[in-house]
């Protein structure tokens, strides 16, 4: 194995960018910070691709199985023997794949932002935050230790918070960033407790050791973990479910998805980076990382993953059909697609042909990163051009934004699962895996993929066709090369990524997975996708009143979907009414009145008693004499009768 310590540079370069720009950017790199950040990331990307090449084609494979390499590893915080937080780098197919995806998408966003964010007052800060995010995300994917992953997990959360709140003087952005952070934080608490449970039973925090201890059937740790139970569910399952809650929070799975649409308040390239391609798939990645434990030792937990994924996919797709803010449509679409990845994992088994879902999920993660980033960047271009997020302000833009139009179309075709674009291949695999393992999920998925095609093309037609938007006098073009190049590169990815023989590289057990292509199986999903597309075309290609009519006829359902099934309201109710009014306010009241009241009452009592005692010291000689006599009598009685 060659010396791989250079891999540490991949996350560290963006970190360096963050520190440099964060501390000195404001004063010294006011305009050049974008170039600096991009350059650093370019180096990181090159390194990542180099690593991927080396891993997949040179040293990664031993006897036909991709190894888990740990080229770098040192103890960061040792709790007790064997249990320590280590900082390390793990190389296995998924982490290498993620390295490439993250650096590549991040690079695209960096380049895109050079133009898109130009002239912003806090330009250096923006790039600093991008650097921080990229660092955290890369650290997350290469984590060799579950606690290390938690650390980067949190860092990812905070950098997402900072980026969503980039426009800090907009109240909506502030609310959105707080919401995102708190919701994910809540999920992270679950993750943390999950880590505690897993580490307690396995006696380690290291991924490799942990997986090994909790999957080998004769290990004591596994037996203990399965034997201990709470509410009839084994401790191991609890641990994994809690870990999954963490993942669900980051990946915006139902019912922890509410932050994702609001997070669109951030700059659009940020949405492309964080809320489409990288951070939101962290949950999927986490489940994939622990996949052997899920699949071998706690299939109940894996089932839960599958159902949560399917429900999220469906709900998000339904909501996406009704939203009018294009970024929100994309956000729900993201959620839906991540739901696909999740349930793909959920229906997967471990090893061999059974592991199809795993491969499919990772494959979809990969292709989705391409076309979703492309969609967001495309939407960014549109928003940049039209200065609005609302569909009603758009229409007929294909003339003004030809390249955006084409790339957007490619992305839509990809996500709709039209062959031969990338999404087709990954989605087919997912559906196949679902078909083989769980028919309920399969039908949900089939329906959802039709909806996907429908809402994506609704979006597409509303933006680029339909009525003609009023474009006022100032007509600026699509933007420069920096704005278009990422679009084109991503479009190439979205179009061609499907042809990668993904099963050769990524599979649940590291061996090669032959993904057979079943033509007869593919007909149905493709047909459904096409139906979706044509429905959308029929409804939205020309301006007409059919959509409104349909919406009116489905008024209840439409309204519910439009209002996102009132989940936000539910959360508001829980937080405002229950957390604040029923717990916070009473706690504060209790403290102010009872605890503090008691303390003050003690003080008051002391004062009152002293006041009374002071009254005895009246200066009246007769009173003193009476006290004296009483005292004497009392003492006499005591001495004579009590203490004989």
């Amino acid at each position, binding site marked *: 194995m060659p010396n791989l310590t250079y891999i540490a540079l991949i996350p560290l370069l963006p970190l360096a960018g963050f520190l440099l720009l964060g501390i000195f950017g404001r004063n010294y790199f006011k305009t050049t910070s974008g170039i600096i950040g991009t350059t650093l990331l370019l180096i990181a990307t090159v390194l990542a691709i180099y690593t991927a090449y080396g891993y997949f084609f040179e040293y990664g494979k031993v006897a036909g199985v991709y190894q888990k390499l740990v080229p770098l590893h040192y*103890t960061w*915080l040792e*709790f007790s023997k064997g249990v320590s937080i280590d900082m390390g780098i793990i190389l296995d197919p998924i982490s290498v794949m993620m390295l490439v995806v993250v650096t590549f998408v991040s690079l695209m966003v960096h380049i895109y932002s050079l133009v898109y964010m130009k002239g912003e007052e806090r330009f250096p800060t923006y790039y600093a935050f991008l650097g921080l995010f990229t660092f955290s995300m890369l650290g997350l994917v290469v984590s060799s230790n579950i606690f290390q992953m938690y650390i980067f997990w*949190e860092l990812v959360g905070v950098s997402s918070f900072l980026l969503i709140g980039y426009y800090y003087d907009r109240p909506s952005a*502030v609310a959105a960033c707080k919401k995102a952070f708190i919701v994910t*934080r809540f999920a992270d*608490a679950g993750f943390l407790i999950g880590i505690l449970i897993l580490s*307690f039973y396995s006696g380690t925090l290291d991924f490799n050791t942990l997986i090994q201890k909790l999957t080998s059937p004769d290990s004591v740790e596994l037996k203990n973990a399965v034997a201990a139970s709470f509410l009839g569910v084994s401790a191991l399952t609890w641990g994994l479910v809690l870990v999954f809650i963490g993942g669900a929070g980051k990946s915006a799975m139902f019912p922890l998805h509410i932050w994702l649409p609001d997070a669109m308040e951030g700059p659009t390239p940020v949405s492309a980076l964080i809320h489409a391609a990288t951070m939101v798939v962290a949950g999927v990645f986490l489940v994939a990382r622990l996949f052997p434990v899920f699949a071998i030792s706690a299939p109940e937990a894996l089932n839960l993953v599958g159902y949560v994924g399917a429900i999220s996919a469906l709900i998000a797709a339904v909501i996406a059909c009704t939203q009018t803010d294009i970024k929100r449509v994309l956000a729900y679409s993201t959620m839906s697609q991540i739901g696909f990845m999740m349930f793909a994992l959920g229906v997967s088994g471990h090893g061999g042909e059974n592991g199809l879902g795993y491969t499919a999920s990772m494959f979809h993660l990969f292709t989705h990163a391409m076309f979703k980033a492309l969609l967001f960047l495309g939407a960014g271009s549109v928003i940049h051009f039209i200065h609005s997020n609302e569909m009603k302000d758009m229409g007929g833009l294909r003339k003004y934004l030809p390249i955006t139009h084409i790339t957007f179309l490619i992305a839509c075709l990809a996500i709709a699962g039209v062959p031969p674009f990338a999404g087709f291949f990954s989605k087919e695999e997912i559906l196949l895996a679902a078909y083989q393992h769980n028919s309920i999920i399969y039908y949900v998925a089939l329906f959802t993929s039709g909806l996907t095609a429908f809402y994506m093309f609704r979006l597409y037609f509303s933006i680029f066709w339909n009525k003609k938007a009023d474009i006022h006098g100032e007509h600026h073009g699509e933007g420069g090369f920096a704005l278009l190049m990422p679009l084109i590169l991503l479009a190439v990815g979205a179009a061609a990524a499907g042809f990668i023989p993904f099963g050769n590289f990524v599979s649940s057990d590291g061996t090669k997975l032959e993904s057979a292509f079943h033509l007869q199986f593919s007909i149905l999903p493709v047909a459904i996708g096409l139906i979706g597309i044509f429905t959308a075309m029929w409804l939205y290609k020309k301006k007409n009143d059919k959509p409104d009519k349909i919406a009116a006829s489905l008024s209840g359902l439409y309204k519910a979907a439009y209002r996102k099934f009132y989940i936000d309201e539910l959360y508001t109710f829980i937080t405002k009414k229950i957390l604040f009014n029923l717990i916070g306010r009473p706690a504060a009241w*209790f*403290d102010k009145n009872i605890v503090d009241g008691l303390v003050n009452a003690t003080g008051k009592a002391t004062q009152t008693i002293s006041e009374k005692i002071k009254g005895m010291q009246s200066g009246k000689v007769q009173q003193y004499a009476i006290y004296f006599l009483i005292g004497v009598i009392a003492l006499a009685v005591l001495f004579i009768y009590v203490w004989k």
Partner: protein
Amino acid sequence: MNLLLLILVPLLTATAILLMRNASQVKWVALTGATAQLILAFVLFFAFRKEQAAGNPLQMLFQQQYNWFPSWHISFHLGVDGISVAMILLTAFVVIAGVLVSWNVARMTKEFYFLLILLSLGAYGFFISLDLFVLFFFLEIAVIPKYLLIGIWGNGKKEYSANKLALMLMGGSALVLVGLLGVYFSTPEHTFDLLKLSDIQIPPEVQKICFPLLFVGFGVFTAIFPLHTWVPDGHSSAPTAGSMFLAGISMKLGGYGCLRVAVFLMPQGAKEYSTIIIVLSTIAILYGAFATMMQKDLKYMNAYSSVSHCGFVLLGIGMLTKVSMTGAVMQMVSHGLMTALFFAVIGMIYERTHTRQVNEMGGLLKVMPFIITILFIVGLCSLGLPGLSGFVAEMTVFMGSWQHPDPLHRIATIAACLSIVVTAVYILRAIGQTAMGPIKAGYENLSDATWNEKLAAIILVIGIVAIGTAPFWLNDLVSPASQLILEKIQLVQ
């Protein structure tokens, strides 16, 4: 290294301050003294690490002993272990930052700085003394200046707060004194010497009585529920440096005392009462967090969050495992640095906006980027962001607490884990309202931090980041000491 220096340097500084003629001389003398303290603390740290690396088997290093009241077996016995060194480092950091932040104190500058330095003297003495009487003596030295600092330089209902604080702390130290005397008379030797006492088995019935006395007594300092009410009022009325010292140093005296005196000397008592400690500290954690959520005043917010965070210290101690106790010490250090910084930032904001009500602020990031960046850092530290000290400490406590498999410990740990969500809620609320959003009218022309404020903040941030990114040095420093305490506990079965 001679530990007496740690007492002499503040003493000389304080004396020199009294001899100075004008405010500017006073400030510079105080700053020089504080710098000397910092240097001294680092020298001690490195000397200690060297001894540790050399494999010195003694529990307490650099011991020194002088007769004080021979007839009562009181001797001036000094010595440090890893925990003390960590606390001394913390104190040095907070002192220098406090001195820098108070640069603009105009009224009675000399007396102000004198008291600050005196307080630091008490703290150092407390952390290095190995004789319980001397320890108590320094504890009292550390209490009195606070009363004056709040009563004279405070704001708001300062007299009330100063009284409340002084009385509650005095009440706490009275309990401590009773406990110490109980320990003193329970042993045939009649000794106050910590090391001698640790070799003797204190009778279980004495432990049963003296442990709660000592623990609650010290617990008052570290805001044990329900004796925490001095914290919000005291902090909010104190001047900036006063709050910093109060939260950064004084509250740590209590935690240190709980660990060093109560648990270390009376492991049996500790075992007996650990359930109660755990319950109380869990309540404090959650309750403090929820109470914080409802506060509108930044200082009150931080004070209540201190109650919550100090709950982690007590939780760590109450769990009685090596990791959790190490975590408790880390949390003390981390919380000390963090709260000091938080109060410093609040002071800076208050000096400019003249309000501490969060709803009267908004968009301050625009006008004071440096201060608000620090606010972000400290807020994120408070909510346990990895890379900053709070995370390391809390996680260590959690990991330690989780080692008990029974439901009580589990529930306490889970509750504590969930509190970090509440922490996120209130921190983000505070930051969101002060720093973000549209800027409020009248704040457009506020200035950013001055050199001294920047320096103070940077010093503390360095401390926070140093722990957060490289916790191993603190862990290596503290965990041998907590190992020794654990061994004492394990002896009792």
